[in-house]
């Protein structure tokens, strides 16, 4: 990953730290950030970074004292930044909020300029964030607020070398940079699995009963209530929750349903595995039920023996240490968010995710009660809506390319910016599909991108299906539709690929099943296929749903 860190103070030392894991561009001389971002032939743009961090120091940036002066300075700097953001849509920009290390000495009645500037600057950045997909706030102030200016800055380094941040501050910044880059890459866990006794509440319910557990608005019990609040906030950002707990089901569910201080309700969890089975088995069953990888799960349990058990049985599951001091539980939840679930922005899909997984569990129950799998598929009343991708679809479509691992033929990851370019490129046709059935709306679950190679040949660049709807032969009807479009337009051949990864085995034989001809296969197992569009074997496509073309 190529990134760049620009600043109006000396951040070479931060750049050195970060360059251990990324390719980092540093501008020569730290006063030159404006030239770097506004001049299209600058070293910065020749380097072609994917992410640019602009970390600015308030004191050095805004020198004016009167309102008129500082307003002008803010406006001017924001203008440079906006120009860079809009001219370079393929680069993601993270721009810091401003902090003033020292404030002007003033009497109690006068306006404190620094606070005004901090506020105005942030207002401007938030506007940029709303206006441009590729602009994000780099929240340096949260770090400073949590550790304090005294810890964050170092006078000595400033006077010695023009470096303002202490080693401690710099390490936290480094972490923030890494986290931002990881989110750009779309590395985020999906599911938080929680234990109950001494995790979501204090005490063991089987011993002390509903009224004996610690969970309340004040004092001791509020440690757990605050912890639950934070977990609820994480859930609202699109993370699904589940319980795996060794308990009598009746005791535990009574607390969840009836305790007045439970913030997390039964419907907040996609699954409650409350039994005496081994936790690793429960986690495995959960992953299967939800159709997610074990490596998308974070497991939180206060009991070190349970944690060790899960770690050794299922090394892919993330098992963080539980805080020994339970007054730190809410901070622990924030740490979980920052380390595993950090989100740059959320899609509409994220806010309804728990409901989607709950529907899926109902579907699996319907499978069990059907005579055959085919009967089940027929009973779903599936409706597949296919449409051309539009600007409003880009965020979710990009998310699908980033996150879909199993039924993904080429596993090409596309950022929102890359997709918006393809939308306006005549060579590409981008499709998306949404699926509904009698249990509910699954939302957008499929992205297909076709590339016109010549007057007679089209290539399938991307074809993926969310794991949510795998196994329902929805892909058959979608591909059939796409083949039809190009056949009717007079194209002769459709070229497709299966590019093997560690996870996309479910898609391995897809084109064989549909009657495509295998043209090439290399030793890694990557395959190239061709279909003569006039010879389409339509009867090999299964159809259980109603197709709606928009």
């Amino acid at each position, binding site marked *: 990953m190529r990134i760049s860190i620009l600043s109006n103070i000396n951040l070479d030392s931060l750049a*050195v730290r970060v360059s251990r894991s990324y390719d980092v561009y540093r501008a020569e001389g730290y006063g030159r950030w404006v030239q770097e971002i506004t001049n299209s032939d600058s070293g910065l743009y020749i380097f072609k970074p994917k992410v640019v961090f602009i970390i600015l120091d308030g004191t050095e940036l805004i020198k004016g004292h009167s309102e008129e002066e500082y307003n002008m300075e803010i406006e001017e700097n924001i203008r440079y930044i906006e120009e860079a953001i809009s001219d370079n849509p393929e680069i993601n920009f993270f721009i810091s909020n401003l902090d003033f290390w020292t404030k002007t000495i003033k009497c109690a009645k006068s306006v404190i300029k620094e606070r005004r500037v901090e506020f105005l600057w942030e207002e401007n950045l938030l506007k940029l964030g709303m206006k441009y997909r590729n602009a994000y706030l780099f929240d340096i102030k949260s770090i400073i607020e949590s550790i304090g200016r005294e810890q964050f800055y*170092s006078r*000595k*380094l400033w006077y*010695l*070398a023009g*470096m303002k941040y202490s*080693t401690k501050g*710099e390490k936290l910044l480094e972490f923030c940079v890494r986290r931002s880059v990881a989110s750009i890459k779309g590395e985020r866990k999906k599911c938080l699995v929680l234990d109950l006794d001494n995790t979501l509440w204090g005490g063991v319910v089987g011993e002390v009963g509903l009224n004996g557990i610690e969970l309340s608005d004040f004092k001791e019990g509020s440690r757990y209530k605050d912890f639950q609040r934070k977990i609820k906030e994480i859930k609202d950002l699109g993370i699904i929750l589940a319980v795996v707990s060794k308990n009598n089901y009746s005791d535990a569910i009574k607390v969840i349903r009836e305790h007045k201080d439970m913030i997390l309700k039964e419907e907040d969890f996609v699954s409650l595995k409350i039994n005496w089975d081994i936790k690793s088995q429960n986690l495995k069953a959960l992953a299967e039920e939800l159709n997610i990888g074990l490596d998308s799960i974070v497991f939180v349990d206060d009991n070190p023996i349970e944690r060790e058990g899960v770690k050794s049985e299922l090394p892919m599951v993330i098992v963080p240490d539980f805080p020994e001091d339970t007054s730190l539980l809410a901070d622990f939840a924030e740490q979980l968010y920052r380390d595993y679930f950090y989100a740059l922005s959320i899609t509409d899909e994220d806010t309804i995710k728990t409901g989607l997984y709950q529907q899926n569990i109902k579907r699996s129950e319907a499978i069990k009660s059907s005579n055959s799998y085919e009967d089940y598929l027929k009973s779903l009343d599936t409706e597949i809506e296919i449409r051309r991708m539009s600007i409003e679809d880009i965020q979710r479509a990009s998310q699908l390319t980033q996150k879909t691992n199993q039924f993904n033929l080429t596993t090409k990851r596309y950022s929102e910016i890359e997709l918006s370019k393809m939308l306006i490129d005549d060579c590409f046709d981008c499709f998306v599909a949404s699926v509904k059935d009698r249990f509910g709306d699954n939302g957008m679950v499929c992205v297909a991108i076709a590339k016109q190679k010549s007057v007679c040949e089209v290539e399938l660049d991307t074809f993926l299906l969310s794991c949510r709807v795998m196994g329902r032969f929805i892909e058959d009807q979608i591909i059939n539709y796409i083949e039809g479009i190009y056949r009717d337009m007079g194209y002769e051949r459709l070229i497709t690929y299966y590019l093997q990864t560690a996870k996309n085995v479910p898609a391995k034989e897809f084109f064989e099943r549909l009657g495509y001809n295998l043209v090439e296969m290399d030793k890694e197992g990557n395959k190239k296929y061709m279909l003569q569009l006039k010879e389409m074997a339509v009867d090999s496509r299964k159809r259980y749903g109603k197709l709606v073309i928009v």
Partner: protein
Amino acid sequence: MEKLIEIVAEILNVDKANISPETSRDDIPAWDSFNHIRLIAEAEDQLDAKIPFEKISEIRKVSDFLNYVKRK
């Protein structure tokens, strides 16, 4: 001392085996003024050292840091 040598090796990006308490700024080209500052900052942070501004230029060799480390 061991910790100090580790820090020096990491910051200067050289093998620990090549660093001794007697290693001085003149011995290692990577020990330039920029890395000197990084060393001071890292030593203060990790070794709980306090190095007064006026003394920073007097540090010439690895063992000089020890004068400012409280917990040795």
